[in-house]
């Protein structure tokens, strides 16, 4: 019974997690890392903690925080992303974002790739589309 429950949970989406406007800024074909941006919503009544993100097209994905401290650009890995009940979080340029490492092939504008957001034993798949950043 317990085993059944955990198998069921493993296949389930993160409860209440909705991912929209997911995109990757177009980068040089030789780029070893790409950025990932999206709007995350927690439609549920319990807090969500995203502890990992991965995707078949990338060697690894890290969650990062960009900040400016005393004229210095700083990038720091984040242990996870937290969404309070009915809360939202924006992954955007110059703030929290995904670092998509070692792409397995070059991406051009219009390409799409799937990334999986893990919250404990559950996970939600989101499609990210490559597009040119706004000037």
């Amino acid at each position: 019974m317990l085993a059944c429950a955990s198998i069921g949970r493993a296949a389930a989406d993160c409860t209440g997690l909705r991912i929209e406007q997911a995109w990757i800024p177009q980068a040089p074909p030789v780029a070893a890392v790409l950025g990932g941006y999206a709007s995350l919503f927690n439609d549920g009544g319990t807090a969500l903690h995203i502890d990992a993100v991965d995707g078949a097209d990338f060697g690894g994905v890290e969650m990062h925080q960009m900040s400016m401290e005393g004229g210095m650009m700083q990038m720091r890995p984040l242990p996870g992303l937290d969404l309070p009940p009915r809360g939202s979080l924006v992954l955007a340029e110059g703030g929290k974002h995904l670092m998509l490492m070692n792409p397995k092939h070059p991406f051009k504008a219009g390409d799409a790739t799937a990334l999986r957001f893990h919250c404990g034993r559950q996970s939600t798949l989101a499609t990210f589309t490559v597009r040119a950043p706004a000037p």
Partner: protein
Amino acid sequence: MQPSCSKSAPRRRFGEFLNVSKGLLRWSLLAGLAVLIGITAGLVVLHPASVQIQSGTLLRQPRPIADFSLANSDGKPYTKADLAGHWTVIYVGYTHCPDVCPTTLAQLKAVEKGLGVDAARLRFVFLSIDPERDTPEALGQYTHYFSPDFLAVTGPNAQLDALGANLGFVYEKVPGQTPQTYLMDHSSALILIDPQARLAGYLTPPFKTESLIGDLKQLVENLT
């Protein structure tokens, strides 16, 4: 007890002074005018044009920089001599930077386009402070994706440190989650170098494409 005397004497002396000084007054006016012209000329020479920039700071007096030895992505050395004869905008960054570096390079491409013919009077340089991962060749491929006219430059840490001390930029390696995914903190300002290869000022974020175009147009058109 001669109040009239005591009054008339100063009056006479004052009158004499006036008579005498008519010539003197003329000379002093001329001299004053000459001094004013001199000061103005001096100011004009020191500050050939009053250039106000919106997106940063110009030094009152451009600062000479020491020679340095870096590598251009085309395999040739990149030294102080490469800075002379045109304005230069240096952007300090690295290619393993997913967020701000490609965004800024894409913005500089838009600035280059917006400058039109004036773009030929300045050079954009992407200076990588991550020579461990950014080989000149890879750096060149990355940079030229944004614009074939951008220069891609890096070099040994000792040279980057010395140039940083001269130009006022710093950088620091920060451990990542794995040894390969370390991060680089780096100064965010764009560095302005004048055609005499001197440090002229900085453009600071948040960068706005239109302001950058306006500022750089002013610089290349007024200060050569």
